[in-house]
């Protein structure tokens, strides 16, 4: 079986500093894979390498067998690699419906139409409703994004990504900053992710990681410390030493 996402010996240097050190990760299709590691472990650099913000110093990235190491950002999205952001990157003046509608239009290749009204194509409306229903955003679909509660904005962040029709989804700390009371919504949102989408989750919230992931990779100082099932990771003394014992401050 071909891997959904695979990195081989990925290295990124900034001058003398090695931010990503020989990272090889393989995600099977439909996997729920989590990436954890203390601050400064190189998680952000890795996600930037995967999405094309940075180019690797050496090593390769492939998506369903296609080498995307040098592909542009929008090309990667077109191939099905989509991300969310740790800090919300939304359109504050758009409504959730408009936001998702635009993403769906793009997915359907309708975004270059200049003289057809957005939503005049029924597939766009249906696609948008699918996503909004899935993440329980129908009730707020016509409110400006900036006025939504933070939890809903976080959900929208994921919803937009799903609206792009990803085959592989990178979730960058989806629960970051979400107040305790709205955490349940996020958990429900993650549970509602389509089963055929491969997910790489980067998260500090260990509770969430262990409930969600079936595989976990631990990143320390730019390199991969170990990879295994949640149980294996939880029991590994090295992980406890470098990370779990420190989780409260991570």
């Amino acid at each position: 079986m071909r891997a959904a996402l695979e990195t081989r010996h990925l290295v990124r240097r900034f001058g003398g500093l090695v931010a990503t050190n020989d990272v090889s990760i393989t995600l099977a299709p439909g996997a729920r894979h989590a990436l954890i590691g203390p601050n400064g472990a190189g998680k952000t650099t890795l996600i930037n390498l995967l999405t094309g913000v940075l180019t690797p110093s050496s090593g390769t990235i492939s998506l369903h067998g296609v080498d995307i190491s040098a592909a542009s950002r929008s090309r990667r999205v077109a191939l099905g690699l989509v991300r969310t952001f740790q800090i919300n990157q939304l359109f504050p003046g758009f409504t959730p419906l408009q936001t998702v509608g635009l993403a769906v239009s793009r997915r359907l290749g309708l975004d270059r139409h200049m003289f057809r009204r957005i939503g005049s194509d029924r597939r766009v409306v249906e696609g948008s409703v699918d996503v909004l229903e899935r993440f329980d955003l129908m009730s707020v679909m016509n409110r400006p994004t900036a006025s939504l509660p933070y939890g809903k904005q976080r959900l929208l962040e994921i919803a937009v990504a799903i609206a792009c029709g990803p085959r592989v989804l990178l979730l960058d700390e989806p629960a970051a900053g979400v107040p305790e009371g709205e955490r349940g919504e996020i958990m429900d949102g993650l549970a509602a992710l389509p089963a055929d989408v491969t997910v790489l989750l980067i998260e500090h919230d260990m509770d969430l990681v262990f409930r969600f992931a079936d595989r976990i990779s631990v990143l320390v100082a730019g390199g991969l410390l170990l990879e295994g099932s949640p149980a294996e990771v939880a029991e590994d003394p090295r992980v406890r030493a470098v990370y779990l014992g420190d989780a409260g401050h991570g």
Partner: protein
Amino acid sequence: MSAREQNIAAASQALAETSRVKPAEIVFWLAALASFFLLPEQHLLLSEVLITGLFALSLDLVLGYGGIVSLGHAAFFGFGCYAAGLATKHGVTDPLLGLALVAVLTGALGFATSFLVLRGSDLTRIMVTLSVGVLMGELANRMAWLTGGADGLQGVAPGLLLGRFEFDIFGQVAYAYTLCVAFVLFVLARRFVHSPFGWSVRAVKENALRTSAIGIPVNRRLVVVYTLAAAYAGIAGGLLTQTTQFASLDLFSFHRSADLLLILIIGGTGYLYGGLIGALVFKLIQDAIANVTPQYWEFWIGLLLVSFVLIGRERIVGLPGLVWRRLRGRA
């Protein structure tokens, strides 16, 4: 109807709602049409307002939708003016054909210079647009053999409009022509901003990072909208030359671009009518102030700019409405 079908109907309606023609819009254009019959003495002024409004609309596409701060938009306006004048002088006397030619040429200039504004910060963009404006003005000045230099482009004599109507000294034909062109361009712009492409341009302004993350090529969108806006500005300039039969270097001046920004701020950005309404209000204010203190009206324009920023546009524009509500509430 199932819940899902209801949801789809609701979403479909909500998406259609944003681009629905509102009664106020119909009133606006009916008023514009009525002005043609009811204000024959104001046709010259109204033509100028409309042309300025169209010019402001083109800046709105760049600024209000694309989020690019430009201080040199007059470059395209001026280029359009000269292009239209030169086309007329060198054989393309049909006004509509000339306008089409101008749109293509200015669009090409916009396309070529759009790559300059893609890079860098707001300051860089301001500098580059400002410089392009100065350079265009200087070019027009230098190429006096072609443009007439500082004396302006003389002897522009457009042919009959549609082969039938001569541009008369009262500005009747000029106003009718300007009104028609402005209306057509407005309708096209309106369709454009409500299209998926238009939304993707707005998205770039709202959040470029997210826009690229959903796979929309940000730079290409900006290039297209910049090119389109340049063509619009060029057409506005072309209209000015055709209706006044004249073009001058002042068209490129910094004041034009600065006034234009003020117009857009008065009228509001990002809903297309801002330019047209702003141009009208600006002209009225300019006339009113010029009647009181002809030499120092610039001071009041400056004060207006400062107040708009410090007090906030909403509060100033909303003031009449607020007073009205207060009065009505009391009555």
